[in-house]
């Protein structure tokens, strides 16, 4: 009987010990976190802007080893929400802030950090090289449903699009579907990211999709629009018809590390990174 009580006592002491040390540990980590707070920078949002932000963060951290920069995706809407609520320092967006968002977070300030073309991509084996903007619109409106109608093989076209609210989709709808006046076909497959659209098109000979220029590689084939192939030059000189600006949003005018990071992206070196990952520099 006596022994049993002793065992209980020991257990409780052990438990209490573990409990106290955990609390101490948490407090300790809190301190470290607090100290580091001024030296961390977090970004989230558009999957289009993500490659620029990630690469820039990598280079920036090499130059400033005391600063830790984290980059997340999530989509333009998420980026604006998170920066508006103060969860992150910079919200990436591949579209301009919407009125609704402006009402919610009136103090957000946007900085254009790059331009981007939206490439229309098909499977590499697809013989179609060129589409007019009208043909593209007809495909996405469901008026053209077979590749043979536009000089391809006799295959039903599988239209791939992004979910409603995506920055890339908004730009596409605005520029190709006459700001949404032309209805998109409800047969279009919806994908959650640029990467998912690319993967779908790369795996299906009948598919057509649209992705940020930075995402184009040899798994998919970009199509000429009105005889213009999307590239840095054609977007910059304005001949390629489907392009847009990319933004970084901050709460108020950027300051401190945030300002330093955005200035870095706007600098010559930063803009070289923009170009390197496949986007178009602003200067």
């Amino acid at each position, binding site marked *: 009987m006596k022994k049993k009580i002793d065992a209980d006592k020991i257990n409780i002491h052990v438990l209490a010990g573990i409990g106290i040390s955990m609390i101490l540990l948490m407090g300790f980590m809190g301190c470290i976190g607090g100290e580091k707070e001024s030296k961390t920078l977090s970004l989230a949002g558009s999957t289009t802007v993500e490659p620029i932000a990630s690469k820039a963060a990598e280079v920036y951290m090499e130059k400033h080893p005391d600063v830790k920069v984290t980059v997340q995706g999530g989509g333009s*809407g*998420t980026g604006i929400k998170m920066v508006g609520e103060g969860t992150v320092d910079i919200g990436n967006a591949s579209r301009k802030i919407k009125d609704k968002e402006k009402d*919610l977070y009136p103090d957000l300030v946007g900085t254009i950090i790059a331009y981007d073309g939206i490439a229309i991509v098909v499977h590499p084996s697809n013989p179609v090289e060129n589409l007019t903007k009208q043909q593209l619109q007809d495909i996405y409106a469901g008026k053209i449903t077979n590749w043979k109608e536009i000089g391809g093989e006799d295959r039903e076209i*599988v239209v791939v699009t992004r979910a409603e*609210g995506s920055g890339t989709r908004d730009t596409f709808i605005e520029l190709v579907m006459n700001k949404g006046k032309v209805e998109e076909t409800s*047969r279009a497959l919806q994908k959650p990211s640029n990467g998912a659209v690319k993967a779908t098109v790369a795996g299906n000979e*009948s598919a057509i999709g649209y992705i940020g220029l930075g995402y184009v590689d040899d798994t998919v084939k970009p199509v000429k629009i009105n005889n213009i192939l999307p590239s840095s030059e054609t977007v910059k000189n304005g001949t390629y018809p489907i392009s847009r600006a990319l933004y970084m949003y901050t709460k108020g005018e950027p300051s401190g590390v945030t300002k330093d990071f955005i200035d870095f992206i706007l600098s010559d070196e930063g803009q070289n990174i923009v170009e390197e990952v496949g986007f178009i520099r602003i200067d």
Partner: protein
Amino acid sequence: MNREKLVERILLICALSAIFVIFLIIMFLFKEGLPILKKEGLSFIFGRFWEPSKNIFGALPFIIGSLSVTFLALLIAVPLGLFCAIFLSEIAPGWAESLLRPVIELLAGIPSIVYGMFGLIIIVRAIKVSIGLPTGESVLAGGIVLALMILPIIISISEDSINAVPRAYKEGSLALGATHWQTIRNVIIPSASSGILASVILSMGRAIGETMAVVLVLGNVEMIPRSIFNPAEALTSVILLEMGETPVGGTHYQALFAIGILLFVIVMLLNTASILIRRRMR
């Protein structure tokens, strides 16, 4: 206060925190989603078009999408799972059981995104090539992937209920001259039927709530599927696809929460039904 009491208190607080979290989730879900459900009323559930940019919110295509993949999954998984459970509990020799059981448990432990990837690379492609469809992303692909995912639930709960059938029933049947198969079919399965039904309903809840695997293989098309070879979109997929991109607090945002409410209510009803049936079993 003695230590015994102290520990009891701590455990009680831990248990209550689970209830508290559920309560918070329900409150949050309904706070965000209820206004639009009230405003749109039945047209939210029976509306055939989903066009958030025009403030048209009809979730019918997604409800039908979710239900059709779920029923297809049950159609595939219930017979398979039931026969597997019968085999395991009644027929399997020791070595087969010790081989099969860990494999089935492993099946339950695979993360859903891995099922999704497997479905996208193998099943979707196989359907596309073998049937000659423009895309293999379809209700059929979703049904097959979900069937694999709910199989372990059906097998383990059915097996439990088969094992719970009193030994005397089986012995009595065999003593009357029935064969083993006759005993299984006419005595054991009927006695275990409520447990089997509970497993079906529980797996239905699991299938309807599944997100990651489904979003990868279903194609996500805002249209009511006309056959199992058409793509469709599930309730869960709409939330996953559109949540990240929509402005917070807007009607679109609220509509996504309203879809969350639909899902919550459906899964809640299914779970309750499953609990009631299992209670009756005992």
